[in-house]
């Protein structure tokens, strides 16, 4: 028996909505504009909750910011949920190009820095998560070298727009979790008798999807014991 040989199956936002309603026991010939409007809202709220609950690896990208001497604070795209890793690059594009990791600090730790205008190669950063977020480096970049700030950040999931066959910004292995999560949200209004079982299934599918949304690498935890030894 032949198999399809294709790997293109990817439900559009509209198809996800129709499937979610079928999980609620709503036929496609029952759905009115209000159903579709509620589903669009629910789908976007569901995706927004995915964005805030966990780093979604499919939303990670690298941002490059050319640093300006004597300028410590830089704007960050407001769709950024968290910054995962950051490093300072010197000698970009040359044979001497070198990257050096910098570490995150909290507002409190930044506030505790006694000399915030000290200029030197940056070693730490503070991600200020206000509505128009910023990243503040310490030390403030000096003019001795050209610096680039590189960071990997997690963004919120893009808006879901069911019209015109647009797909949802999520990997294929998340689609069932999204469908059941959406069905559960819609069931609160349109199929209250099904909420409990849809919620159970949605939770289990979300857990499975999250367990797959990881980098499959070893995790090493090593204590810093150097301070216990005398030279």
């Amino acid at each position, binding site marked *: 028996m032949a198999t399809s040989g294709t790997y293109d199956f990817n439900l*559009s936002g*509209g198809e996800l909505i*129709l499937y979610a309603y079928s999980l609620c*026991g709503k*036929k*496609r*010939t*029952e*759905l*009115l*504009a209000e*159903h*579709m*409007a509620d589903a*669009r809202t629910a789908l976007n709220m569901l995706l927004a909750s995915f964005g805030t609950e966990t780093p979604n690896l499919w939303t990670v990208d690298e941002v490059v910011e050319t640093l300006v001497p004597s300028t410590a604070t830089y704007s960050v795209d407001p769709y950024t949920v968290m910054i995962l890793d950051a490093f300072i690059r010197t000698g970009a594009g040359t044979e001497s190009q070198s990257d050096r990791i910098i570490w995150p600090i909290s507002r409190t730790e930044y506030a505790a820095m006694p000399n915030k205008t000290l200029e030197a190669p940056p070693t730490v950063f503070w991600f200020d998560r206000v509505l128009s977020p910023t990243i503040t480096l310490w030390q403030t970049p000096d003019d001795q070298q050209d610096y680039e700030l590189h960071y990997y950040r997690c963004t919120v999931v893009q808006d879901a727009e*069911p*019209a*015109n*066959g647009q797909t949802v910004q999520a990997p294929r292995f998340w689609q069932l979790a999204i469908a059941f999560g959406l069905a559960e949200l819609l069931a609160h209004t349109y199929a209250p008798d099904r909420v409990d079982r849809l919620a159970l299934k949605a939770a289990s599918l979300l857990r499975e999807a999250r367990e797959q949304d990881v980098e499959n690498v070893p995790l090493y935890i090593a204590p810093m014991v150097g301070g216990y030894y005398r030279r």
Partner: protein
Amino acid sequence: MAGYDYASFKTAIQTLCASQALDQPFETIFPSAIIYAENRIYRELDLISTVIEVTPVTALVAGERSVSLPQTIVAINSISILTPAGSTATTGTRKPLVPVTRDVVDMLWPGVDTRGVPTMFAMIDQWKITLGPCPDDAYATEILATTRPAELSSSNSSTFLSERLPDLFVAAAMIFMSGYMRNFGAQASDPAQAMSWEATYEKLKGSALVEEERKYFWGSSWSSQPISTTAQPQRG
């Protein structure tokens, strides 16, 4: 086959009405009795024998999401798009369209700029549908629909009803003819006649319906199909 043709059906009704041959009032009213009986049975039983592949084939037009259908259609059973464009029922691949509401089509495929092979349709009126997405090519369609067969007449001497459901056909015609005989009221000579034929018709319809449900494989609820009277309790 123990059924009727036009002449024997007319004779049977005439006999049941105790009417004389060549009785002019009977001749005048008899075609109306056929119309009443046929329409009532077709509407109430949704006979699978009235489902046909609609011709001529309706071809889609690229960029036009509304499609007019032949006016012989009473109710659509299914619509398939034949791909690729230019193919026919014998050469093409069928892609069945999913029936949805017009709101769904308008929300998911709001314009004609985004085009493709349609996947869904919604009824706009009796003979017009709208497609989503808007067709990107001139695909042919295959439409299965319930239609009304030609009525029994002197020029169409037998029908499915006269041949396969003759008892029901007679009962339905006699309900109408009871009115012709003015046997509906208390002043009439046989006021129970119409009610008696109505009861007979209902019993016969029930038995015919069981067969029709088997023909359709009607089952439980949550379907566009009527709910089988024999599928109790309902599922889904």
